[in-house]
């Protein structure tokens, strides 16, 4: 036994919360996406930990699929950041307020 499950879960929670903080506080679009990455990472940790706990490999497979999805999402997300930069010459999230009203 490596470590009690709760310790693993606490570590994952802390990583998740750090990523969440990054998303909420930073105004740079890229930093927000990085925050999302951190959060996804922590979920991956939980999945692996769970698969180790139950001694089944399904959790790891889910992590693989998660990574693939993350790759796709990052690709499109960063393409969108490029597009927005083309539109407004800035990637400050406060500038993109067309959703107002």
């Amino acid at each position, binding site marked *: *036994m*490596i*470590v*009690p*499950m*709760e310790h693993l879960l*606490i*570590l994952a*929670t*802390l*990583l998740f*919360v*750090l*990523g*969440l*903080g*990054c998303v*909420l*506080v*930073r*105004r740079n679009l*890229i*930093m927000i996406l*990085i*925050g999302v*990455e*951190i959060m996804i*990472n922590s979920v*991956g*940790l939980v999945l*692996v*930990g769970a*698969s*180790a*706990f139950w001694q089944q*490999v*399904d959790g*790891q*497979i889910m*992590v*693989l*699929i998660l*990574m*693939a*999805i*993350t*790759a*796709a*999402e*990052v*690709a*499109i997300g*960063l*393409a969108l*950041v*490029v*597009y927005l930069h083309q539109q407004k010459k*800035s*990637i*400050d999230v406060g500038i993109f307020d067309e959703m107002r009203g």
Partner: protein
Amino acid sequence: MIATLMFYLLGAVALGATGMAIIQRNPVYAVIYLVKSIFALALIFYLLGAPLVAALQVIVYAGAIMVLFLFVIMMLEVTPTSAVEATAPGWVQWAPVLFLALTLVALTLILIGLDPLASEGVPRWHASPRDFGYSLFKEYALAVKIISFQLSFAAVGAFHVGMTERKRAQLEDVS
């Protein structure tokens, strides 16, 4: 024993690296720190008996996704002296998030505490790549197909969205 120690050590490294990453002014530095965190996590995965996932974490996550981030950062020439975030967020901005974080942690702790299984230890095991592969292509074959589709239309979408102005105008002239 060693594994337990390693786990805590690597956990501390991951947390520290992530913490440093989120307060960086320069996004490049943030990405580098994040890569460090990813490495630590990969080692934790190995400890938890997932060697293939650990390798894939380094190759795909650190090697592809973070590199993509760096590409885009370089392309957009986001520097600390640019208008964006001339000053890093200070105490005031972090305070509500801190409160939020504590709330979430508290919630999670409550949830964890409620579960009797949580105090059981994670056993040592090792999932060989062979077992991994079998399970992947037998039970989750459909999932593999679907995510390969997804990767292809993600590529198409990224290509389309990320076009330069000139290219977009050219295409519209044609249509």
